[in-house]
Each structure stands twice: as C-alpha cells, then as structure tokens.
C-alpha cells in the first residue's frame, strides 16, 4: 500500500504527517521525494545509511566523426546543442537526457557519458525504512532521483509513505504515479484553498483516490474545509493548531514517538487512510 502526501505549497505539514504516520505502523517505508530540500531524515535520524549516486546520460561528441550536418542541433527541443565554427558544443545544464541526439546522428559521432546529479540514501529508524533523495544544487530536474527512490522500496515493506515535493509540477506527478492513495494536506486560509485546489486538480487528473487532512485548525471559519464540502472532497481528519505539536516538530522530534497522545492521534489518522485505501480497492479494484 502506497500513500502519497502532497500539498500545493511548502509548510502545510506534509513532512509532519508523513514522518508521524511512518512511525506508528509496523513494517513501514518512508520515502522523501522532496529531493530539492529533503528534511524527513532530520526527524527520523536513520542509522546505517547507505549512499548511492544517481546519474543521467549526457551526449559527448567525437569531432573526428562529426560532419557538421546539425541534425542533432535541429532535433534537440531544449536547444542543448549548438554548432559553431565547425565545432559541436553540448550544454550539459540544459540537456534533458532524452538520448535523441545520439539516435539521429547519421555519423554515430555522439555517445553518452554519465553525469552525477545527486544521490539516494537508505537507512533505518527504529524499524522504519528511510529513503531520501538529494538533488545536487544547480541541477534542473530531480525526476531521475525520484524514479530511483521509488524503485528502491524494500520488497517486504507493508506500507509506504511518500512525502512529496510541494506544488503540482512534473516532480510531484512522478512522486504520485504509483500511489494507491493521495492525502492532500491544507491550511485553513484563503491561500491554503488556492494551494489545495492545485493538488486537488492534479489528483483528479491522475484519477487517484484522495482525501484531505485539514492542518492547523482554529476555532471559527476554515476556508479549506468549506472548499472540501463544496467540492464533495472527503475530509479524513483535522489536526488542531497546537503549540505543543508545533514545538516538538520545530525541535526535529517526531510527536508520535514523544507522547502517547500524538501516537494515538496519528494512528487514528493512518487507520482512517488505510480504511479508505481498502475501501477503494473493493469499489474500484
């Protein structure tokens, strides 16, 4: 069972919910797909971490074979190649590693080399498997790292919590593509509604079963709740605006490990989500 946690912006509680759900169940794997700024490991503090580099393919030219036809230059939709003064120039930082230039070269002057863009770290935190992806600063796309992370999920894992990057761009689509259920986490503000709507549209587009957790709830009106009711979106639970919870989280502690009260709270939330996933499996097998 793969549960993805997402939101339209950062700071709504994706990692809070993900790490807490990851420690209350048995045999759980936590995957941090927010490869541009992974922070789940700061809470889970995994031990026995194994690091593995992630590389993409970049074209290299053999100028003794290149006849200057520029077919590769014309082919590249990202304009990563230029042919100037009888020399082919490759711009590694624009290349999207599609391999097309190598295929279209009639002289076989192009081959590919590896370019390291980041790494995957695997460790264990008190029985919870922890996988984190890290994209090197300056790299354009973390998608190859997310692919590697999702492929690395341990076979014996009963449940996987996918902590997604914020937003609804390609990198989030990649993170949720294999998810059985998407949990959208939202703040009780008008801005929160806008961000919730972004991920709501995404999960609808992907036809993913989904529900909402309302975070930081205060007394009084909650625009995010009103949005869910209006659009008939399942509200899974509400997390109150809670100083104690916020303080634990700010100190990089996992609330469910620190107090029975929070262990119970997050166990209940996880229970409701698991029930939803099983219900989905029966209704839409």
């Amino acid at each position, binding site marked *: 069972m793969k549960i993805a946690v997402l939101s339209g912006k950062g700071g709504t509680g994706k990692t809070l919910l993900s790490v807490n759900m990851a420690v209350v169940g048995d045999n759980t794997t936590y995957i941090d797909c927010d490869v541009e700024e992974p922070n789940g490991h700061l809470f889970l503090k995994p031990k026995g971490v194994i690091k593995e580099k992630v590389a993409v393919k970049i074209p290299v030219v053999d100028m003794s074979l290149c006849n200057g036809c520029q077919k590769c230059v014309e082919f590249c*939709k*990202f*304009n*990563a190649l*230029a042919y*100037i*003064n009888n*020399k082919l120039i490759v*711009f590694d930082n624009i290349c*999207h590693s599609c391999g097309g230039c190598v295929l279209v070269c009639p002289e076989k002057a192009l081959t590919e080399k590896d370019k390291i863009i980041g790494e995957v770290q695997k460790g264990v935190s008190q029985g919870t498997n922890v996988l984190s992806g890290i994209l090197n600063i300056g790299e354009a796309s973390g998608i190859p790292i997310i692919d590697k992370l999702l492929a690395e999920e341990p076979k014996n894992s009963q449940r996987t919590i996918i902590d997604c990057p914020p937003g609804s761009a390609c990198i989030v689509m990649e993170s949720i593509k294999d998810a059985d259920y998407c949990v959208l986490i939202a703040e009780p503000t008008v801005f929160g509604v806008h961000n919730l709507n972004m991920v709501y549209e995404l999960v609808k587009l992907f036809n993913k079963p989904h529900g909402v957790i309302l975070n930081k709830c205060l007394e009084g009106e909650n625009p995010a709740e009103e949005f869910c009711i209006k659009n008939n979106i399942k509200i899974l639970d509400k997390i109150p605006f809670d100083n104690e919870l916020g303080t634990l989280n700010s100190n990089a502690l996992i609330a469910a490990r620190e107090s029975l009260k929070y262990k119970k709270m997050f166990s209940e939330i996880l229970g409701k989500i698991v029930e939803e996933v099983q219900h989905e499996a029966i209704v839409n097998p």
Partner: protein
Amino acid sequence: MKIAIPVNDKSLENGICQSFGRAPYFLIHDIESKENTFLNNSAATSRGGAGVKAAQMVADNKVGALLTPRCGDNAADILRIANIKLYKTEGDSIEDNIKAFNEGKLSLLMDIHPGFHDHGGR
C-alpha cells in the same frame, strides 16, 4: 561587417527587445551598405535553451557584433566561440544604438547573467 540587435518588431520604430534569447525578431544591419534585414527568432517560443538557439542563429548569419541589453551565459559562450563581440545597448532606440556603435561609443557587455534555464527562473 554585419551587426545583430534583438528587436520588438520588424521595424526600426518599436525599439530594442530587453531579452536576447526570447526576442521576437533580430535586426541584421550591414554597417557598410546600411541594409536592414529582420529575422524571425524561432527560439522565442522554445521550451528551453532559447539563448543557445538564438545565438546559433545570430552566428549562422555571420555577424561581427551583437548589440543587446542583456545576454545569458550559454549564449555568451557560443558568441565568444563564434568571435562575435557583445556590446551593451543604451536606451531603447535602435537607430541611436547603431549610430553610437558606428561612433565607437558603445561599451562591451560585461555583466553576463546566469540564464533562466530552470523553466522560467527562480
């Protein structure tokens, strides 16, 4: 010698474009014959690497200099290899800048920006 200028329109009236890679047109001006040609910049709508493609186009037109308000680092790399000198334009007027170039009053463009290759910049 020919020079290139990123421009907003196929005319001398509507000014210099603030972007090099995504300028809609390039003016190719021959400083000896005073002949003007406008090129459609096919890079203007590209998904990425507009500067690279635009620089390739400018280089293919065998110009000796580019007059532009700004230029990204990838495009600047190409222009350097193609031995095209970069001059910084002053103000929006195309004709004033051609005149200033002919009188040797334009300075070289030194502040090459790092580009906006991450899908729209941050």
